[in-house]
Each structure stands twice: as structure tokens, then as C-alpha cells.
């Protein structure tokens, strides 16, 4: 059940305006109501929404929207600009202490993802910044939290300092920093226990750790699915500790993530990183402008393009283009293409980044679990080199052999061959059409059934 994005929401109002020739103040007001609802639906805190809409209204009622020929587009543009402005610029740098080690404290509610994020951040520091981090296990309350950090440390081959769960977290933090100095670690990451922002005793404990360890960064770790309460949580942690930055976790889910905007606007603190998956390297710099699009339900084309760029080999792409033009595209080439698509990440995630993909016919319910890709691969790999070059030689007995080799039913092999044939035909038509300057056609990949 994908929520409607702002663009969809505005459709109704735009329809009404169309043909009127002039946009009235009442029309703008109606559009603003849609803006408000779109943001609320995305979990942006209602107070933040209120201020924001007021700001946008002022610009909208002014010249920009009312004089525009495309008021709907204009509203979206204004909203997006204001939202991006509010989210601030990209800030993923991490402080460096004048005298090492640099101390980073990880704080937040239970279950936000502090321990996992600590591991990811340490890994990032080592990989991207060539640092030598030490993880400090200061969550003595949750059963096996220390063990969790130790396991993560082992996975990443990173040292973890722990003193068991019978020593106070304040002591652990202190000893951890000493240890880091001794062993010349330049970063110390203190993983603290999750706690409620209204738990005075535990909040005091954090204050003590802060006083004692004099951290250079205090990262508030927040679950991106958090609802209206995000403002209260962020405000309380910030008031108590003076947070220096925010890490937004579980952003690989399908939440709109309006909490990001709420936190940003009540604390003014930058969101520095985003947790994008369960793997230990899935911590990315936070991109405010992309988050703005996401909150508005407008997809994330930039990330998609970037992914494609980093994963697709340009020389190969050129070669492929030539093959397509000359229609000498073989099943081998096709396999190659599949590999490149797969490298870009899970298909369902890629699809989600395309604006409106959830509204596109046939794409909304598509079952892209990557398995089908695997099947197609298996089938092609079960063919001989000659078969891949000239699929037309594949007769019934060859089909049977391929089916056995790939473990897929014969029907699937038939379907793949047929689709490949059609694809080639389509490409021929496309190249012909392009030459004549006609309209482009579309073709189906065999894995999009």
C-alpha cells in the first residue's frame, strides 16, 4: 500500500484549475492542504508541517505560482526547494580531535540500531578514512548486547573493548579511552545502551559518560520509521547531551521517513549518515535533497543513476550498443547485461527509486525477488557456446538437456528463447525506427513477466 506522493495528491486540484486561466488564492489554499496532508502522511511532525506550509504558502500566493501557466508543477517546485533548503546541505564529515583519540558516543532509544551502526561506522572509518577505530561495548543492560558488538567486531576484524556487564558504563567508557590511547587507536566509538528519553536515571548516566569522555561527536541514532514522537525524542536527547549529528537507520525500508525532517527542524542538527541495509558496509552519507524527494513520494532518480554509473562498465556499454544496432546481440551478451543489472542491487529496491514506478501498470505488483534472474542465468549457463551464439539450433532434445542442466522446467526455457527472439526483433525495429526518426518502442526483458 504505497502512499500517494505529493504529485498524485495535487492532481485533483490541478484538474480543477485547468481551463480556468487564472489561479485564485482559494486554489492555492486547496493545494496547500494537499501539501500538508502529503507531509503528514510521511510522518513529518504536525508542528513542523504547519510552519513549513505557512512558509510555502507565502511564496505560492506571491507571484510564483499564481502567475504560472503550470501552477501544479510550480507548487511542487516551490515545496521541493523549501524542503531541500530545510534539510540543509550534505554533511557527512566526522570530527577529528586535535589530540587523538577522537571520541564518538552513540545514543538513542532501544532498537534504533546503535550497535549495528557503531559497527558500520567503525568499518567506514577504517575503509574510507584509513583510521584505526576501537569499539567500546558500554551497553550492560540488554542481554547479549556486548556479545553482539563483539561478534560484529570479529566479522569486521575490528577490536572491541569490553568489561562485561557488571561494571558501570561510565567506567567502561573511561577505561576504553585509556586503552585506545595505549594502543594508539585514533577513534573510539562508545556504544551505549538504548534508553527512553524520559528515563532520568539513564539520561544522567549518559551525561556522566559525556562529561568523562569529552566526546567530539555525539550521534543520535534514530529509526527512520519513527512517527510523530521523533521531535520529542530528538529534542530531549539534544537538550540533555547536545547532540552533534544524527544517523537515520533502516532507510532501506519503505517508510517515507518524514522523521528526518522533524528532527532536522527541531534540533537544527545535521543528519550525517543513513543505514541502508543489513550488511556491514550499508552505511551511506545522508543526501538531504534525495530525502526531500522521498518524503514527497517522488522517487530517488539520483541514487539510481549513481548506482548505474558506478556499476556499469562504460566500454562494455558502448560495445553493447554497437551489438544492439547491428542486431548481433547473443544470449551471452544478454547474460552479461543481467550480471550488470544484478550488481546494482536488489531489483525491487531499484524499482522503488524510479518516480511513479509504483503507479506504472504491471510494475506495481511485479515480483522481483532476483530469483527469476537467477533462473534465467542458470538456463543460459546450461547452454553450449554454440547454442548461445545461435539459439535457433536449440531443438527439442537440446531443450531437454538444458532443462536438466538448469533445473528449470522446459516451458521456462521455451519462454526465454521466445522472449529473446522477440527482443531481438524489437531491437531491429527500434534501430530501424531510430534511423527513420520514428517514435521509440518498448520491449520486455524476459525476467519481467
Amino acid at each position, binding site marked *: 500500500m504505497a502512499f500517494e506522493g505529493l504529485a498524485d495528491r495535487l492532481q485533483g486540484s490541478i484538474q480543477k484549475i485547468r481551463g480556468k486561466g487564472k489561479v485564485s488564492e482559494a486554489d492555492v489554499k486547496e493545494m496547500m492542504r494537499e501539501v500538508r496532508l502529503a507531509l*503528514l502522511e510521511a510522518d513529518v511532525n504536525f508542528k513542523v508541517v504547519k510552519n513549513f506550509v505557512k512558509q510555502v504558502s507565502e511564496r505560492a500566493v506571491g507571484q510564483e505560482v499564481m502567475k504560472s501557466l503550470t501552477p501544479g508543477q510550480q507548487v511542487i517546485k516551490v515545496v521541493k526547494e523549501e524542503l531541500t533548503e530545510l534539510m540543509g546541505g550534505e554533511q557527512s564529515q566526522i570530527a577529528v580531535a586535535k589530540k587523538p583519540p577522537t571520541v564518538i558516543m552513540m545514543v538513542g532509544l532501544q532498537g534504533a540500531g546503535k550497535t549495528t551502526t557503531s559497527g558500520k561506522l567503525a568499518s567506514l572509518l577504517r575503509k574510507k578514512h584509513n583510521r584505526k577505530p576501537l569499539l567500546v561495548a558500554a551497553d550492560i543492560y540488554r542481554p547479549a548486547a556486548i556479545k553482539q558488538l563483539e561478534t560484529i567486531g570479529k566479522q569486521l576484524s575490528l577490536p572491541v573493548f569490553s568489561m562485561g556487564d557488571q561494571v558501570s558504563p561510565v567506567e567502561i567508557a573511561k577505561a576504553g579511552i585509556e586503552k585506545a590511547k595505549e594502543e594508539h587507536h585514533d577513534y573510539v566509538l562508545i556504544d551505549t545502551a538504548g534508553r527512553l528519553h524520559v528515563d532520568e536515571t539513564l539520561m544522567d548516566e549518559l551525561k556522566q559518560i559525556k562529561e568523562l569522555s569529552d566526546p567530539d561527536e555525539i550521534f543520535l541514532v534514530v529509526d527512520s520509521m519513527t*512517527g510523530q514522537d521523533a521531535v520529542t525524542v530528538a529534542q530531549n536527547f539534544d537538550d540533555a547531551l547536545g547532540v552533534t549529528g544524527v544517523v537515520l537507520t533502516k532507510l532501506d525500508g*519503505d517508510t517515507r521517513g518524514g522523521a528526518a525532517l522533524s528532527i532536522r527542524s527541531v534540533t537544527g542538527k545535521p543528519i550525517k549518515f543513513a543505514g541502508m541495509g543489513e550488511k556491514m558496509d550499508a552505511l551511506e552519507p545522508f543526501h538531504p535533497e534525495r530525502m526531500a524527494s522521498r518524503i514527497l513520494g517522488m522517487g530517488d532518480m539520483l541514487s539510481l543513476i549513481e548506482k548505474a554509473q558506478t556499476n556499469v562498465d562504460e566500454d562494455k556499454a558502448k560495445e553493447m550498443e554497437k551489438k544492439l544496432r547491428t542486431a548481433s546481440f547473443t544470449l551471452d551478451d544478454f547474460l552479461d547485461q543481467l550480471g550488470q543489472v544484478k550488481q546494482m542491487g536488489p531489483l525491487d529496491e531499484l524499482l522503488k527509486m524510479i518516480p511513479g514506478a509504483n503507479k506504472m501498470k504491471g510494475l506495481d505488483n511485479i515480483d522481483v*525477488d532476483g530469483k527469476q534472474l537467477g533462473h534465467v542465468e542458470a538456463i543460459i549457463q546450461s547452454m553450449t557456446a554454440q547454442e548461445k551464439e545461435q539459439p535457433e539450433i536449440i531443438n527439442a532434445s537440446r531443450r531437454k538437456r538444458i532443462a536438466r542442466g538448469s533445473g528449470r522446467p522446459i516451458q521456462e526455457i521455451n519462454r526465454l528463447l521466445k522472449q529473446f527472439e522477440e527482443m531481438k526483433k524489437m531491437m531491429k525495429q527500434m534501430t530501424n525506427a531510430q534511423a527513420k526518426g520514428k517514435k521509440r518502442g518498448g520491449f520486455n526483458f524476459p525476467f519481467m513477466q
Partner: protein
Amino acid sequence: MSFFKKLKEKFTTQDTATDKYKDGLSKTRNSFTSRLNDLVANYRTVDEDFFEELEEIMIQADVGFDTVMELVEELKMEVKRQNIKDTEGIRSVISQKLVDIYYDGEEPDELLNMQEDDLTVILFVGVNGVGKTTTIGKLAHQFKEDGKKVVLAAGDTFRAGAIEQLEVWGDRVGVDTIKHSEGSDPAAVMYDAVQSARAKKADVLICDTAGRLQNKVNLMKELEKVKRVIEREIPGAPHEVLLALDATTGQNAMTQAKIFKEATNVSGIVLTKLDGTAKGGIVLAIKKELGIPVKFVGLGEKMDDLQPFNAEKYVYGLFSDLVDKEELIEEEE
């Protein structure tokens, strides 16, 4: 007699559970009802602005966007029908409507589907970090207190330290935990756990699973498989599939409930972390749209801080300021 008065009478002899609800929900109640009261006080007349602010109050409680819109529409009709002009008159209508959302004319089923003289299997599902393992520990403790023999299945083979976390709870409570090594197939763990629970003649088997975001198709399929294995071993099992839901979650909770229901036929919700300032209002919308009742609420970190959900108590805790005020008005009259 008003609905709330009835509720209050029901709980005048307050037991500790009600107190716990009140304690746990006090922050919730204060912010929500005081705002509702402010609203009524601030607006003399019922107009568009009034409704707009009412919408915001409920949205702030994470009640769920569609539910709020629907409720406001109904209220507007009611105001017109009864010709209510001042805000005092609308107060009781608002509270009654909110209660109706949850009840929906029927008594929701808050009790667990327990098998008499046979093994009851309870499967826990949910996204990452909502408190599945902790809730299992608390629930195991309750069953143990009731004199039941409990076995735990460490089905979260993915997250580092998850198996140990469940084991610690098992030791604390004094029940057996069936485990495989980290990274093994969770379905295989379930198979072993079912065999073991049977051999031990256990009353309850509680199965932990790894947290997963509902848009991860592969992981949701894995969960379906876990459930299938249990089903195959014991027809009719799992007897309960409980979705752990963090009370701080916003609108995404609806999607979680919907997709987990599709995959595992969720039979109830455990609303965790309700002792914070979050309101968990989305459960009203989930009940209304998907028919999934809340069965337990987590109101704290201690072993006995898991309470069976009781809609009346929940609503009472949420609205007790309103009850008192309504009474005052009635007395004045």
C-alpha cells in the same frame, strides 16, 4: 450514564494492572488529552479551523492518516445532524467515536489461542529492533508463572548476538532454548524446536525470528517458509502469530501489519515500548483496517512489564482526563 462513567465505575476498585496502564500511559494521556482539552477550550465554535486542529491532534498521536480523515468526516456529519454549535457539545462525540473505532461493534479477541492439553506454538514476527526477543522473554516468564512448561526457539540466526540474547532470557526465566549456530537456516531451527518441545511434553513453544523490513521480498519468503515448516509438523500451528510493533512507529506500521499479515497471517499485535512518550495510536487504525487486535502491551523493561491488552483499560488510560472532566460537567448539571 455516559460511556466513560461506566468505564470508570468498572475500574474504581483499581487493580495493579490498571495502575500500570495509567503509569505507562500517563505521558501519553497527558499530552494527548490536555491538547484535546485545550482545543475545546480555545475554540468557541465548531468550524473548519477547529476540525483542522482536531485532525492534527489525532495525527500527532500517530492514529493513522486515513482513520483520522474518516473520523473527522463522520464528526462533521454528526455536528450537522445534531446541530452542535459550540465545542463543549462535541467533546463526548469525539471520544465516543474514537472508542468506536477500536470496538467496531464487536468485542475484539484479546486472549491467546491456547491448546488444551497439547502444544501451543506462538510465532513472533516484526521489523528490526521492535523488541521481539525481549517480549518473548517476558511472555515466557508469564507462562512459567502460570505453571506451564515453556520451550524457546532461537530463530533469529541472522543478527549478531541474537541467539545469546534469547538464551540469557531463557536462563533468567528458567526455560530451555533450542538453538543452532549463527547463520543457519531458521526453518531448521523451528523443525528441531517442534520435535524437542514435543519430546519434552512442553505446553508452549515460543519462536523468535530475525527482524526484517517488510519490503525485503526474500526475507519475507524465508519467514513464510519458517511458518510452513511449523505448520507441516503440527497441523493448525502456529496457533498465534504475533507481530511486535514499536509504539514509536509512525504510518509505516500500517504497511508492516499488512505485509506481515499477508506473509504469515498475523493473529495479534504486541505493542512494545508504550512506556515512552509515543502513543501507539496506529493500533486503532490497524484494528479498523486489517482487523488485527492488540493482544499485549509492553509497558517497561522489567520481566512483568508485559500486560495483556485490554481495550477498555487502554482507552481508559488514554482518556481518563476526559472522563474526569465529563463527570464534572455532569455533576454541575
